[in-house]
């Protein structure tokens, strides 16, 4: 895939050699992407190949006397090397010179550039382009038609998108090359209750290709049934309740409530409470949390955007916080090993510590046992959004559906929408049952604060915990 990167690679090596005469460290990340999305709804049929602003380009990283500096470009050839070198020298110096008085460079050691080489091809069964636009649009069109037959439907919206990417990381001693493909799909339904529009959806993801489409066709009835439940939903009565989280809600708690808090660039900034809890119980012994490439999902890469090889990072081990995840620059400042979590939204953006595939290990309980154990509480389904608070470990997660449980049984009453709040360790320490089957969902993107969107997956099993709902 993306043969253009093969053609340009020798010239990139020349660029690195030229810049190394001026800078103590030089690396280049080259990226190329093929993207396509297909959507149907009342808004019509849409087909886009424009991507998500990831795309094709280069980021050149150097270390000079001021520290880490980068130049992002999306045109490169051997003839451009002198101009690139000149631009970097001139503008990066101008940027340094314009800094206000009192600002000093943050000490940064030269990154580890021990030799590493890797070439890995994308794994997929069916290339979506072999299936073709006509067949994919026909599939989601069929799903939509089927869903529209349900009573009271305002709209059915279905979409499929995929991304094939190739990344090459080059430095004086590293030559890493990987291609990667993921595919996502969703089916959703809308109904109106007066002026209020209720929505329900189901998402799908795979590290792979159009083999995902086999899963998509049969769930629209489940989505429209859930939507019907939402149409008779009631506002939540605020309080703390025994809750059963479905695997997607568990995933959101893993990611939003805890994951962001152990991104170690936040440790460098003194923005994460987790740093003070290393080696301590932060969760129930039922909780073991992982991040990394030990699973095949949308965020599985063999190396990160700073050229660090990835792996399996055990963050919480049976309730004890063992370590965070870390990008290379933060790792140097903290004196720890990077974990392969230095990720960029695209070649146009800075690298930060970012999650990849983040999940809780499974246990041995069943959903039915959890529900049966609750005198009064809720089954939480369909997460919609969340926001991190690493400094204070506050939780803000929104879910669409809370099903009432009374005397160990679902009553049929539904509450919506729901805001989950509270203190993260309180919630995690209250985990009293963990289900057996771990499911990861990679349909979404994760922001750092309010920007820097990267593809991630998260998940876990059904989980019972005490949670404050509002």
């Amino acid at each position: 895939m993306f043969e253009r990167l093969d053609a340009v690679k020798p010239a990139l090596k020349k660029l690195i050699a030229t810049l190394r005469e001026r800078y103590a460290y030089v690396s280049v990340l080259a990226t190329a992407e093929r993207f396509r999305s297909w959507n149907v709804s009342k808004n019509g049929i849409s087909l886009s190949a424009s991507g998500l602003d990831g795309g094709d380009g280069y980021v050149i990283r150097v270390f000079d006397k001021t520290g880490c500096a980068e130049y992002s470009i999306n045109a490169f050839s051997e003839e451009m090397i002198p101009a690139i070198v000149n631009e970097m020298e001139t503008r990066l110096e101008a940027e340094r010179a314009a800094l206000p008085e009192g600002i000093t460079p943050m000490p940064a050691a030269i990154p580890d550039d021990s030799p590493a080489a890797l070439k890995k091809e994308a794994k997929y069964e069916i290339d979506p382009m072999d299936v073709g636009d006509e067949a994919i649009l026909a599939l989601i069109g069929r799903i939509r038609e089927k869903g529209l037959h349900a009573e009271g439907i305002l709209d059915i919206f279905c979409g499929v998108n995929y991304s094939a990417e190739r990344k090459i990381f080059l430095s004086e001693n590293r030559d890493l090359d990987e291609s990667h493909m993921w595919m996502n799909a969703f089916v959703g339904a809308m109904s109106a209750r007066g002026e209020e529009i209720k929505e329900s959806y189901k998402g799908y993801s795979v590290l792979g290709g159009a083999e995902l489409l086999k899963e998509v066709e049969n769930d629209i009835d489940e989505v429209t049934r859930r939507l019907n439940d939402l149409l008779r939903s009631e506002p939540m009565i605020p309080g703390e309740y025994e809750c059963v989280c479905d695997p997607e809600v568990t995933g959101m708690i893993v990611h939003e409530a805890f994951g962001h808090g152990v991104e170690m660039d936040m440790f460098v900034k003194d923005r994460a409470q987790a740093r003070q809890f290393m080696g301590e119980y932060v969760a129930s012994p039922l909780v073991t949390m992982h991040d990394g490439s030990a699973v095949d999902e949308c965020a599985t890469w063999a190396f990160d955007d700073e050229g660090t090889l990835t792996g399996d990072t055990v963050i919480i081990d049976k309730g004890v916080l063992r370590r965070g995840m870390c990008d290379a620059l933060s790792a140097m400042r903290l004196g720890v090993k990077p974990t392969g979590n230095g990720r960029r939204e695209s070649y146009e953006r800075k690298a930060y510590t970012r999650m990849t595939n983040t999940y809780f290990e499974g246990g041995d309980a069943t959903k039915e046992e959890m529900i049966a154990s609750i005198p009064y509480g809720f089954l939480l389904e369909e997460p919609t959004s969340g926001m991190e608070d690493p400094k204070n470990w506050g939780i803000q997660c929104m879910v669409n559906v809370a099903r009432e449980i009374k005397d160990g049984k679902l009553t049929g009453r539904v509450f919506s929408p729901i805001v989950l709040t509270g203190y993260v360790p309180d919630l995690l320490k209250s985990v009293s049952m963990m289900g057996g089957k771990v499911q990861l969902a990679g349909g979404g993107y994760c922001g750092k604060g309010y920007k820097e969107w990267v593809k991630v997956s998260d998940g876990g099993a059904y989980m019972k915990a005490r949670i404050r709902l509002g």
Partner: protein
Amino acid sequence: MERIKKLLKEAGVSEYIIFGCIERTAELFFIKKQLDTRRIKDVEKFKVTVFRTDEKDGKQLRAATDVTVLAEMTDVEMLDAFKGAYFAAQFAMNPYYELPDPVTAPLIEAHGRLAEQAPEQSAGEMAAALFRADTGTDAFLNSAEIFVIQRRSHVISSRGTDVSWTEAEVKGEYVVQAKEPEDVEMYRDFAYTELNTNALTAQAKEALSFVRDRARAQKILKSGNYDVILTDENVMMTLWFYGDRASARMLYPGYSTWKIGDDVQGETCGDRVTLTLRALAPYSKEGIPMHDLALIENGVMRATHGPNRFCRYLGAEPTGDYRKYSCDNPGTMTFAEMQKRPCLWAVTFSGFEMDPFSGHFGGEIRLGYLIEDGKLTPVTGGSINGSILDAQKDIVFSTERYAEIGYDGPYAILLKNIAVAGTDAE
């Protein structure tokens, strides 16, 4: 552009819109008073939308597919991309619509130091403005990011549009921290189209003041229904519900049932909404000339807005997508008067959300003030969960104003009887 036009012709594409954009940036990243990373960027991209027409059962149809191409692509690569997009378009047919009307004009250039001086210099000046506020020891800047962007855009279409313009923007975010008695932080972002150093210094000073209060805020909020005051960007997000619901994207599929002339707030309502959409750029990415647009006047919808296709379907003049609106009501209560009643002023959230479909808004409170007998007690924790469809019945706008790159309108709104999940259950 000429190369793209030639290759489009070779690919058999006779109808198209090309949006070309050159972006040059300077970026600074700080951790406390140290420079973490500095970055520069030079990119050029072309988003090419190819159109195809067809006919079925006597009805004309239209499809559009877009693809991004780069100058470094070979002719063969670019030709393949255009052929592929044009081929795919046959499977994505929608009801027919006309492309945007042609418009030609000379380059419109942005002026001022932000547009004209080197972005590296502007980044330094904005950094100085930010750190000028950072003079205390009890509350301080934890970290900051500054992005200066100079952009040149060019739109060409097969109908003859040829317009170009330049823009400049400085935006960023920062976190303020206070360590005593509680170690807390707050996030703020900013964006300006001018080198507005004074505004950034003032905003940072206010943020430092808020974070001092958050450090002594208590988790004493009890669950119940409260009159809630929202301020600044949370007001902007709440009132954009009306902008969203009046958009052609919501009207065409029937997600919004509003019509021009409708009283969209209903007969029983508090302060009336008057929204004007403000043009920040002279043209949209489709080459549609953009002008200020009176959208809602005293609660009555006067126009719709959106991209070419959906406006055409509704028989409305295409307006392009706006990035700024103003709420022009003068307000009926001062912010001080709002605070005379027992209420909760929710200042900042972990992430405030407004769902334009359901009308629900809410979030977890990072800093609030519980106001009783004129006394403000800082509180933290808990969440609000309300519906604008209910709350608009007695919504009150402040007479004080607030402005940022995407908004100019009331600084505060008072919403009555909003459900609050307190921290009493902890």
